[in-house]
């Protein structure tokens, strides 16, 4: 383990993210993303067939806020 503090921060980030999403307080959710971000939830079928459609496809933190 080269950089233990970073590793712990990462685990903490995942933990905080899961806890925020599980809590149902959706206004917390966009806060985990940078302004420029990409959030995609793509059906396996589309991925495997090489077609771009994603059931959720958000291109910025602004869109995440709009979705909430």
């Amino acid at each position, binding site marked *: 383990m080269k950089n233990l503090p970073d590793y712990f921060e990462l685990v903490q980030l995942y933990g905080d993210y899961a806890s925020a999403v599980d809590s149902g307080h959706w206004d917390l959710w966009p806060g985990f993303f940078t302004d420029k971000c990409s959030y995609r939830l793509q*059906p396996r079928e*589309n991925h495997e*067939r090489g077609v*771009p459609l994603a*059931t959720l*496809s958000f291109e910025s933190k602004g869109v995440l806020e*709009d979705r909430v």
Partner: protein
Amino acid sequence: MDQPSTVFPTEPHWEGEGTSRIPFATYTSEELHKKELERFFYQGHWCYVGLEAEIPNPGDFKRTVVGERSVILVRDGDGGINVVENVCAHRGMSFCRERSGNRKDFTCAYHQWNYTLKGDLQGVPFRRGVKQDGKVNGGMPADFKPEQHGLTKLKVATRGGVVFASFDHEVEPLEAYLGPTILGYFDRLFNGRKLKILGYNRQRIPGNWKLMQENIKDPYHPGLLHTWFVTFGLWRADNKSELKMDERFRHAAMISTRGTGGQAGQVTQVSSFKESMQLHDARFLDIVPEPWWGGPTAVMTTVFPSVILQQQVNSVSTRHIQPSGHGHFDFVWTHFGFDDDTPEMQQRRLRQANLFGPAGFVSADDGEVIELSQKGFEQKPFHRTLAELGGREVGDADHMVTETLIRGMYRYWREVMEA
């Protein structure tokens, strides 16, 4: 004590000749469902099976359904499009398991019976028996004729890149089936340009399949259930709109033009409809009118019984209704664009696809209301719905404040079902 059940009637009870009060029992009976499959999906009707762009090359196939019967849409070596039933002529096995792919021929895994891409039987292992110790054992009878044992072939019609199929070879031509009015809206969307597949969304909805047709024949709900539409002017009760049907009232088009405040150009005034709600990222509503729209910003077409053709601003898709018993259906969305789309237009279509569908912006999804309607029907099948907005008659309309299209569909339903 042989009193008939008053809660669970054996037949739907219609109040008189009208169709504004639809018995719950229309949605709750397995027996009635089978009669619907026979009369609407397997006889006298064209069912949607896919888009030509899904099978561009010889040997490309896609497994899909007509009603509840598994079929394969396949392009043969001559470039022709065939639809064959996915049931082996030998022991009835549903032999094709892949959802899509490319094949030179079809082989059933069970006994290796082999078919051409047109569905003709071309190979039967041990047909002439097996030679052992100078004696021929077994084999098919001498009068066995492979040409009599192909796969069931469906009649196929294509128009504008869309493929329909029918088990009924006597079915009227597709154009007559759609009728001139609906054909006009069909051709508006599928005007000969090559299509480009953008991808699929699949939903299993625990409700009767007819509810999905009704949902897209119901312009009453979008502005009330999908409040987001109203906020951004995509669908409002005061939008300029028309409702049109074919002469038998089975198909329909809901045509709507988003208010533009007199602006003919690009419509991006998203904040003007409701000041308090503004998008953080306006690209979601970066709507660019396209020449082929010819005015309307949304046309939702229901082609009875199997498909919905969606144009909502720049998002276009087919939505295939695939029944599975009286109480469920699969709802398969194929989003597409056009070959000549700019990269920006393709991106715009993909972005706007997020507005609709199972995870769309449109508040509660239609699948949820359909599930809850079905629950209501199942608990008191003696009761009936009340589709009387705009009167009890059936006819085209120049506004959205009516359930006339639902009444129209049930007028046709009662005619065909003799109910």
